[in-house]
């Protein structure tokens, strides 16, 4: 079973993503903020990281930077969910090391397709 780490401070959205992905048979580990995500992150354990941008303590961007700077963190796939949909924000996110970007609001169906793609790729 493919394992996904989800960091999202909004409980409702967390529920949306978790429900959507779990229905498709993924195992989803939840984190409510950036710190928690980093604590839970274990290189090799997760097939995908789904991060929110705006989170308390560490933002999604901080989390990416931190993970990418660790030895084994550079290979894990990262999908960023953000309400900041401006092009320059997207660029910043991709520059920081995210592999994919989806803007909020997002379609759960599309999210599934996307996640499948990413995991197949890997």
């Amino acid at each position, binding site marked *: 079973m493919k394992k996904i780490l989800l960091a999202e401070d909004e409980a409702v959205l967390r529920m949306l993503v978790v429900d959507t992905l779990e229905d498709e048979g993924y195992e989803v580990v939840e984190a409510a903020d950036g710190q928690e995500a980093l604590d839970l992150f274990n290189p090799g354990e997760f097939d995908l990281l789904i991060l929110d941008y*705006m989170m308390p303590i560490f933002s999604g961007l901080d989390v990416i930077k931190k993970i990418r700077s660790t030895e084994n963190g550079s290979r894990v796939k990262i999908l960023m969910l953000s309400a900041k949909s401006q092009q320059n924000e997207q660029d910043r996110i991709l520059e920081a090391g995210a592999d994919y970007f989806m803007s909020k609001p997002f379609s759960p169906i599309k999210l599934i397709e996307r996640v499948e793609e990413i995991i197949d790729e890997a």
Partner: protein
Amino acid sequence: MKLNDQIKKSFSNQIVYLFGISISFFILGTILLFYIQNELNDKYIEEREQIVYERNLLIKINDLYDTTFIDMLSYSELITPQMESKLLSQEEEIEKLTTALEIPLETYKVDGVNTDMIREFSADFFTVLLPSYLARNENGDNQQLDEFSNEQIEKFRESMLNSIMLVGKQLENNVKKLSVYTTYIQIAFIVFILIFLFVLQRIIKRIFKNIGEPLAKFAFAANEIAAGRDAVIQTYPERKDELGLLSIAFQKMVSTLQVKEQDLIAHNEELLAQQDELQAGQDQLQETLGTLLENEKKLTNHSALINGISTSLDKKEVLNSIVSNMCKITFSDSGMIALLYENSYASSGVSETGARQFISNLHSGLNQRLIETKKAFVIKREQDISEKGYHEAINYSYDLYLPILTTTSQKVEAIMVYSRFGYPYTDKEIEEYETLTKQIAISLDKIKLYERSEEARSINQDILNTVQEGIQLIDQNRNIIQVNHQLYEMFDSLGEEDVLSFSWSQWSSKLGEKIKDKQFIFNLDEAISAALRGNDEKSTFIYQLKENSHVIQVYCKKIVNEGKAAGTIIVHRDITKEFEVDQMKSEFVSTVSHELRTPLASVLGFTELLLHKELKPERKTKYLNTIYSEAKRLSALINDFLDIQRMESGKQSYEKKYIDIRPIWETVIENQQVQTLIHQIHLSVDTEQTRILGDKEKIQQIFTNVLSNAMKYSPKGGNIYIHLYENEHSLIIDVKDEGLGIPKESIPHLFEKFYRIDNTDHRQIGGTGLGLSIVAEIVKIHDGTITVDSQIGEGSTFTLTFPKINIKKEDKQFAPDKDNSLSIHHDVVIIEDDLSLADLLFQELTSSGFQVSCFNNGQAALNHIKASPPDALVLDIKLEENEIDGWTIMNELKQDEQLKQIPIFISSAFDEQERGYSLGAQDFLVKPYSPSKLSKVIMQTLLENGKQGQIMIPKQEE
């Protein structure tokens, strides 16, 4: 003969002739004497040479013998044949010298030279003595010379020495003889000179006698003639020299003079007459000159006056110069000028008190007469004491009043008064002075114009300096014409004085140094060119200052003067505030959009799941509930935004009532606590009086905002304490959290619109940046205050205060709050088929103190109303299908006498207000509306009806 004639004719010739002879004679005598002297000298030298020659010969002979004798004696023992021959050869030498001595000089015979004696001894010595001596030596007879030979030799040597001495004596005598001759010659020369001088003196005396005597006679005669006496003039017709001629000429002259004198006397008389005439002419000229000088002085004074009034534009200065110059021109002792309509004057020779006295009476008395007549006049008066000085008799002073008329309207604009002691002003003078006043009037006009233009200029400059923008004016060639104060301030360190002398490139590069944008100079040039082309779009740009990061907008405009481009005006406008507000707004829009996206994402996401997936019923419900609450969140956000909009535009209205804040807090806490597991909210109330005058809905909004803020900014959870208490004037609420705390520098900005604390901790927490500014705004409307005390990392305490109210003064009719309404029990019936809305309305009206009954079925409701008529009815128009609709219910009620006065509040999604009101609706609320609005309008209607004595059906009465 001819020469003699020549000499007799002229004195100069005579003198030349005599001097010629004397000098010739003198030269001849001198030459003769020199010749004799020379002869003597030559003879002396010759003799001397002879003597010296012979003496030398004698000395040589003597020496030779001496050598011979010495050789003979010293070598007597070692005589050799060589020696012998050498000794013998001496004889020849001596013989030669003796012969030379014998040849006597022709001219002179030297005494004492006895050649015979030498020859005799030589013969003896060389023939007898020497050979015998040598022979003896050869024979070894080494004896001395014999006595005889010795004697002979001695004798010879003595006589030789005598001879040499004699000759030396002759040399001395010879010198003595020469000096004696020389002395004779010198004496002869002196005698010759004396004789010559004597002769010369005689000759000169003779000549002068010949000239002097007749001249003296002439002089005497001339003197006599000059003295006017008759004189005998001696003539020397026999003399052919100048004197002879002179005497004849002199005589002729005298006779001519005598004739001429007669003429002269006659002429002289004539001249005397002419002289008298000339004298008279000169006197006349003198007089004219005097007048001219006087005129010149007058003109000088006039030109000083003109000069004084034309060289300055300073009023005070000009007035002073007018008075002092006019005093000179009018020969006055004191004077004054005063402008009638301005408080300006100048005086000369007048005391300060006098001047003030005059000024205070400027429009009365004599001045009044002057103003009316516009004609100069003179007043004669007795001198006052100060003018009189030491004079005892009565003296008079004259005051001249002169008006100055404006050039345009010929009105008196200034008055001049001049005083003269003792002698009056003539009419001619006054006329002259009146002409001068015209000049003065012109200069006063000029000053007025100048002052007016100065004033206008200064107003312009003031305007320029007052506007907020930095303004600079340049001409066509980009010379800086004017720069206002603000521009200097914008560019702090620009020296105010220098700038106008800067060239354009100096100026712009100086500005460039202070500006972040490197393109500044280029942009400015472009903007100016664009302005000159009339391209307004391109004549503006924005730059930022280095020093304080202010954002400045520049725009340039062409200045057109009389149809021609005159320059460019460059305006630097500080748009930092607008710029910041703009930035804040766009940040706000992006924040709002972000905030909206999160709930929107939930709504859309769950909806999508519901639509596309087969889900279990409980999951469906869960999702629907979520969608509902997220949608509510969305609408709250939108409301925040709208609130701010309303507040900003001043459209927000407040319905203030007496409300109890305690239950409000309870509701708010209940609502918030549901949303969190990590926060514990505690309410403590230390006062009995918890009522304030306020808009319940808004107050609840404040509390919700403050509490949700406290939760939001303590992301790790913790306790939140809400404490209600009072002091003398206020009801106070502390909301204390244990969250992040607020940085000190942020506290003053906390209640500003769009402000969000700019650090990562806070940034990560979403928000519109509006909550607290809404709170502050509402608190202000309620005459309350909100303050914050915070410690970073430890939490914050927000303190709200509201003015306390006095219960005893409460007007019951105006305070139908919850407590009061309980005793009245107004019934309200709601007919609404939308259950959630019905519930919402039910909650609202119940919390406002009404007794509420809800119906979703029209018929059932009608039955209930008929059975128990309520105080008000809330009616939805569109009810479920196959049901009677709202309109039907309304018609039925309005036709019933009993029920038609029940106020009906229509609550409909359709805007059919006209129909509603025509059927007799009390109010028409278009969905969606705020439930509180409903309770408000019901409350209002019931209160009004109660006041008018209309239907008020308290529950108890039924």
